[in-house]
């Protein structure tokens, strides 16, 4: 399972993308580096303190070495809404498995149980647990009822920016445009839209091929007159088709709020 689906009492269903073991391991590595740095700083302070109060310095060292790793995780996750520095860097967050806010007991428990997840060395138990559990949870997460999710950073969609507001010659044939809307199912429309959204991520060769196939497919759905489609590049044809499907009234002049 890659997503955690949550159904609210209002009947709304939303999903959270679960973090994979690799991104979690990288975040853990970053956090370990932070804790190591903090411990080194503590060590330097203790060394300095040893000249003045050697006994107190010794106490501080032992207690600090124990408390630091646990306190770091607990404090960061509690005060930073489920994010340690490592998780922030890699776009992860600890959340309640039911989509609610984290409670203090959850934060404390999941961090204390690192003791068992770490066994026998380097989080072997925790790593295996994230691979075999349904919600990619280590044992600490299972006990605390938490999951680690990827933070979605979706931009607010903007069709004007995506499709543009240039003249769409296909609109000159409203009856064919209506037929196209009738014949193209939602899934096909979404594929065409996604091809435009992700155009920059696709290399030139495969991109030309993709838009050729899409254009051929939509040409097969409804045949527009030759004087309109001749000379229209495949990608522009797909752009015009998406414009017809998603903006049936063709109003592109109103300003975006």
């Amino acid at each position: 399972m890659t997503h955690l689906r949550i159904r609210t009492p209002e009947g709304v269903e939303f999903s959270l993308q679960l973090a994979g073991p690799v991104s979690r391991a990288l975040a853990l590595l970053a956090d370990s580096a932070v804790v190591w740095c903090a411990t080194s700083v503590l060590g330097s302070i203790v060394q300095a303190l040893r000249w003045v109060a050697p006994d107190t310095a010794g106490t501080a060292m032992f207690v600090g070495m124990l408390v630091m790793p646990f306190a770091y995780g607990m404090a960061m996750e509690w005060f930073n809404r489920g994010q340690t520095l490592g998780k922030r860097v890699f776009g992860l967050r600890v959340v309640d498995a039911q989509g609610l806010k984290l409670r203090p007991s959850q934060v404390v428990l999941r961090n204390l149980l690192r003791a068992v997840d770490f066994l026998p060395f380097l989080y072997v138990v925790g790593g295996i647990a994230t691979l075999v559990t349904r919600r990619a949870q280590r044992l600490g997460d299972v006990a605390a009822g938490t999951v680690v999710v990827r933070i979605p950073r979706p931009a607010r969609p903007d069709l004007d920016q995506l499709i543009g507001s240039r003249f769409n010659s296909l609109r000159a044939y409203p009856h064919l445009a209506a037929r196209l809307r009738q014949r193209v199912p939602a899934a096909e429309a979404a594929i065409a839209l996604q091809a435009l959204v992700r155009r920059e991520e696709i290399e030139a060769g495969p991109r030309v091929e993709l838009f050729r196939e899409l254009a051929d497919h939509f040409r097969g759905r409804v045949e527009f007159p030759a004087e309109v489609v001749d000379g229209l590049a495949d990608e522009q044809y797909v752009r015009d088709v998406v414009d017809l499907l998603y903006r049936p009234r063709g109003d592109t002049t109103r300003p975006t709020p």
Partner: protein
Amino acid sequence: MILDLDRFLREGRPHWTELEEILGRLESGGVLDLAGARRLHWLYERASADLIRLGTFASEPETRRYLEALVARAYSEIHDTAARTKRFRPLHWCRRTFPRAFRRHAAAFWLSLAITVAGALFGGVATVVDPDSRHVTMPWGHDQLRPSERVRQEERSPRGAGKAGDGHGTFSGFLISNNTRVSILTMSLGMTYGIGTIVMLFYNGIGVGAIAADYLLDGQGRFLAGWILPHGTVEIPAILIAGQAGLVLGHALLGRGNNLPLSGRLRRIAPDVVTLIAGVALLLVYAGIVESFLSQYHEPVLPYAVKIAFGVAELCALSAYLALSGRSRGPVDDDDGGDDPDQPFRQRP
């Protein structure tokens, strides 16, 4: 049918932006007045309706992801539990929350004690039957020295064993950190359905039993009591409570006699497990200080009778605290769970 996405976005965007702004303020620690809370609720319902509408009419992943993220954030804010807003009160926690959590799971404590006693009996019998087993059963280098030899050394030293190294504070810090680490592991191993916790408790018991038998066989029972009791009467119960927390976890995983799903069972006991382990940490801090600053002093500096009396008094005080504290018939707080004050040793069904 394809949704008029352009119109959908144009109509929805101002509300989504407003919802984002309110959520941003709340997530930065802001507070809403009644009108603001109503507005938040309305905007949440509106975004939820948009999400449903989008799911019904068009499979448009980008907008859907955006709305899902927005609704998820709003959902966690709106369905936040009141318990979170309660302020932590340390005195209340010590007086009521910890002892009540202990009593709610008293059966697990008795089991933890029984396993440790079984381990101690095993260790004791092993030492009596096979004295060479001391090299396997005794921790902390106790196998290297006969008890009578150690007592001679301790009593010759004006300040006891001199184990403190850099001083009593350092030794105390070492004891606190080591015992806390062991306790956390004992509790955490509850996630192995309690088996790891049982092994840890039994193993600890073996060490205690072996050392006790060794001293008794060598005629050093008085020294042993004077050495162990001042800190052991707190330290050993603390580790037993860590075992109790581990067994509570293991019991929740097994789910015997409980119809709740696993997540529900764990959610129910998690606050108590955290309370128990926090109590263990406090007890171990106290025990570490006593062990370093008191237990290491022996006769002629400190008479054994005084140390034994001190240890017995501590045990009585701790027992009374765990059994009686917070048993008033006053209103029950959410974080207390609400045990029956008349039946303190009955586990919550």
